């Protein structure tokens, strides 16, 4: 272990270590978890030259304030984030996302807020010095699994880093900002449990994202869905992005930390192409659902992955 580290001066609201997720364990009740926005995650790692599945810090809304106590570090912040770097001589540099910065000993990185979005990421050149559990460094705080005893980052925590950065070059990526309200879905396993009118409402009326939204799920408020068959089903395995409707008729979208099995009927599933976009929506925002077919969803996702590869390929050195 190196002796280079950050100290946490302010933890932020929900700051955790995450990677792509922990797989092959859902049959034991362990949800995959991982970064909510896998696109911003990959871009962050690419900027600092890491393997794309290296662990990063994920934060939501207000991020952490970290002080580099020992060492030199190169970081990248992705998402849509307001942050600043406070140099040890008190100079304040206002930060831009999707580019790298060098931190010297004594510098602070102050991640103030995500801007019109929920999640942001900080990647570190060479990676954080954290211990994986079952091949992943994703934190699942409700089961206390992952680095940092499976907990969110707390004040005065020491965050160890692997390498003392020698690289003087900095890089930036061009990431287009998307803003749309339409979320494309596929029919859920129990789509037919809902009345024809409810099916029509679901695919035409607006739904508001409620405050009851976290890494596990997003509760929506809108036209009540009328179940004409049964409001409970036999518990079955869950898939990320499943939209379930409990007896009160208000849909809940199951997100990255979903419970591994569940017994509510599912009206639809969010497509992979729109998932990373959906989770960046904040409470109060409104969304619409559009039904598409499987082949189209697969094609759109392929195109989406290509666009992320293009962003990564076009990372340029800053002169």
């Amino acid at each position, binding site marked *: 272990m190196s002796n280079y580290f950050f100290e946490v001066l302010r933890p932020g609201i929900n700051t955790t270590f995450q990677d792509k*997720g922990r797989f092959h364990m859902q*049959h034991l009740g362990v949800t*995959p978890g991982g970064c909510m926005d896998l696109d911003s995650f990959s871009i962050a790692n690419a900027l600092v030259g890491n393997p794309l599945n290296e662990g990063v810090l994920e934060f939501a809304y207000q991020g952490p304030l970290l002080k580099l106590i020992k060492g030199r570090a190169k970081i990248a912040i992705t998402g849509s984030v307001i942050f600043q770097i406070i140099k040890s001589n008190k100079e304040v540099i206002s930060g831009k996302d999707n580019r790298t910065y060098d931190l010297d000993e004594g510098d602070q990185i102050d991640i103030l807020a995500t801007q019109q979005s929920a999640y942001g990421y900080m990647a570190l050149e060479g990676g954080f010095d954290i211990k994986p559990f079952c091949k992943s460094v994703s934190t699942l705080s409700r089961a206390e699994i992952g680095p940092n005893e499976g907990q969110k980052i707390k004040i005065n925590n020491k965050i160890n880093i692997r390498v003392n950065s020698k690289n003087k070059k900095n890089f930036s990526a061009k990431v287009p900002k998307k803003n749309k309200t339409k979320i494309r879905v596929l029919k*859920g*396993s129990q789509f037919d449990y809902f009345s024809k009118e409810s099916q029509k409402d679901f695919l035409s009326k607006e739904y508001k994202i409620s405050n009851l939204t976290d890494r596990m799920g997003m509760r929506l408020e809108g036209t009540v869905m009328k179940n004409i068959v049964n409001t409970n089903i*036999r518990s079955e395995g869950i*898939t990320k992005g499943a939209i379930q409707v409990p007896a009160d008729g208000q849909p809940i979208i199951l997100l990255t930390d979903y419970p*591994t099995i569940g017994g509510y009927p599912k009206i639809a599933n969010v*497509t992979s192409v729109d998932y990373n976009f959906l989770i960046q929506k904040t409470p109060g925002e409104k969304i619409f659902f559009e039904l598409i077919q499987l082949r189209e969803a697969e094609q759109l996702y392929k195109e989406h992955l290509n666009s992320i590869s293009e962003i990564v390929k076009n990372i340029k050195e800053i002169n």
Partner: protein
Amino acid sequence: MFKKLNNIGDCGIVCDFGEEVNRETNSNVIKLFHHVREEVLKGSLNGILNYTPSYNKLIINFDLEKINSSQIIDFLKSVDFSKLNLSQNSKKWTIPVCYDFEMDLENMSKTLKMNKDEIINIHLNTNFFVYMVGFIPGHPFMGDLNSKLFLNRLKTPRVTIPAGSVGIVEKFCNIYPYKSPGGWNIIGRTPAKLFDKKNETSPCLLSPGDSVKFKSISKEEFEKLANE
């Protein structure tokens, strides 16, 4: 053999074995689960991320970057069910339980018109089968209890139930691996760790398809085992 194959979203497949929930249906689900898991661990099915058996379904989640629904459906259709085996992958467990930690036996005794010992004896003499594990890490759903013990969930779920609590609802028995809210009828508590993150190679005690028998222990034995 499954009755239907469908996609759930663009990165999931559900193998539906029919509506009936019994050991035979679930054993078939679990046979397929073991087979898929082995193929994935062998490296012959690249891109599959998870395989989650439940009472009557197996859900397969995959990475759409590496594989798609139709490739997985082709694989599933080629499976020869006559060659799948359940027993070689399933373990038998004896789990200690201290009934002194019950929370609901009094009420159950009234509802079922049975004395507490009779309830405990039925529980102790049942050979349980682990239908599935999930919701949270290590949480088993086991059956089948004698229909004499048929009970619904509590009308008002408890805000917290201690870790290790053993509960029953309908024909099922569960164990809460973590301190959590819950609505099952609590008849005792086990000192066994259902999910042990210190044991990284095999953190989860019970797997789908395992068999379980309970063994009654005293409070003193409970404390001793809990502190081990």
